[in-house]
């Protein structure tokens, strides 16, 4: 009977030992799986950083070339002292963002400026054009009624003047007769800093009634119309370029931080992994030694 009994006890004991070992093995395994996934994430964020660094250098070079477009156009409004017409309360806000995330607070910053404006009491006369899916996503739920145009497929490639021209056409053909407006975009300052800025947009009527328009020579209505169309396109172009540049630089820092954080996590996980492994080994040693001692 005893002989029959013994194998059963034996299997029970080994099962318990197996379970205990399994539990330790499981945590060890869980940690190593996690460690592996964090390492993979770090690799991804690092390569994303490299990609955006390359895109950023290009965007910055492009931005230098695009700057005169925007500055020239806004200088005209400044020199002619164009101001928003008081009898036309309709305003247009254009949010310049892009479709892609993982780049810090670039898109939220722009959307926040517009959201703050829309939460003011006289917001009924404001309409918004969202350039890029991100601003649409943020503004859609609360202020969907204010959105008249959405443009997407932005941010995959650097913006071209043709993109800006298409946008300008959309602004002009949207059927919304605004008196004045603003283009809200991220102005690039340096690799680590950008801030929200705006460019003015005016209706033709507002420009015609500007007090200092006479400083410009030989202007007739036709020239003014053409210039207005062109300046809208070039300001949009400039804003798109500034936005793209700050987005890439911001993505670069965001991905750099992500890689750094992943590195920290890897360090901590390796430490706990090694500690657990040590603990398992120590416990096994204790078991063996105490087992040997019990035999004596």
């Amino acid at each position, binding site marked *: 009977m005893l002989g029959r009994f013994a194998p059963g006890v034996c299997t029970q004991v080994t099962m318990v030992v197996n379970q205990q070992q399994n539990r330790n093995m499981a945590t060890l395994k869980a940690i190593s799986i996690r460690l592996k996934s964090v390492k993979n994430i770090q690799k991804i964020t690092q390569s994303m950083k490299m990609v955006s660094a390359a895109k950023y250098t290009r965007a910055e070079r492009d931005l230098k070339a695009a700057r005169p477009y925007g500055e020239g156009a806004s200088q005209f409004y400044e020199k002619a002292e164009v101001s928003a017409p008081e009898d036309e309360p309709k305003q247009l806000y254009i949010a310049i963002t892009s479709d892609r995330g993982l780049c810090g607070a670039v898109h939220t910053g722009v959307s926040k400026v517009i959201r703050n404006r829309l939460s003011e009491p006289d917001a009924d006369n404001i309409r918004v054009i969202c350039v890029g899916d991100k601003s649409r996503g943020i503004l*859609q739920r609360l202020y*969907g*009624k204010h*959105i*008249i*145009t*959405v*443009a*997407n*497929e*932005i941010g*995959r*490639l650097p913006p*071209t*003047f*043709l*993109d800006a*021209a*298409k*946008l*300008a*056409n*959309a602004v*002009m*053909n*949207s*059927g*919304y*007769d605004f008196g004045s407006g603003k283009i809200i975009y991220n102005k690039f300052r340096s690799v680590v800093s950008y801030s929200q800025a705006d460019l003015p947009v005016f209706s033709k009527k507002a420009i015609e009634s500007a007090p200092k328009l006479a400083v410009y020579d030989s202007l007739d209505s*036709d020239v003014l*119309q*053409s*210039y207005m*169309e*062109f300046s*809208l*396109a070039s300001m949009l172009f400039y804003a798109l370029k500034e936005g793209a540049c700050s987005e890439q630089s911001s993505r670069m820092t965001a991905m750099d931080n992500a890689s750094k954080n992943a590195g920290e996590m890897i360090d901590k996980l390796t430490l706990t992994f090694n500690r657990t492994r040590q603990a398992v080994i120590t416990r096994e040693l204790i078991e063996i030694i105490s087992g040997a001692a019990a035999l004596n």
Partner: protein
Amino acid sequence: MSTWRMAGLNYVNYSNIAAKTLRKTLKSEFREDALRRDQTFIKIFFWMNGNQLGLGEKLKTDKEKT
């Protein structure tokens, strides 16, 4: 009034057509680079009351409404 405006173009369209023609006349070593600037992928949708309108549809102007 200029002829292109009478044809229903605005200045942006007009100058884009001119730019396109100019790009085509460039020497082949410069043309490739210039043609890269000649593409656009941006898509535009008009919205009304928080809903997207179909492609080609757009807001009615005040004049059309009355």
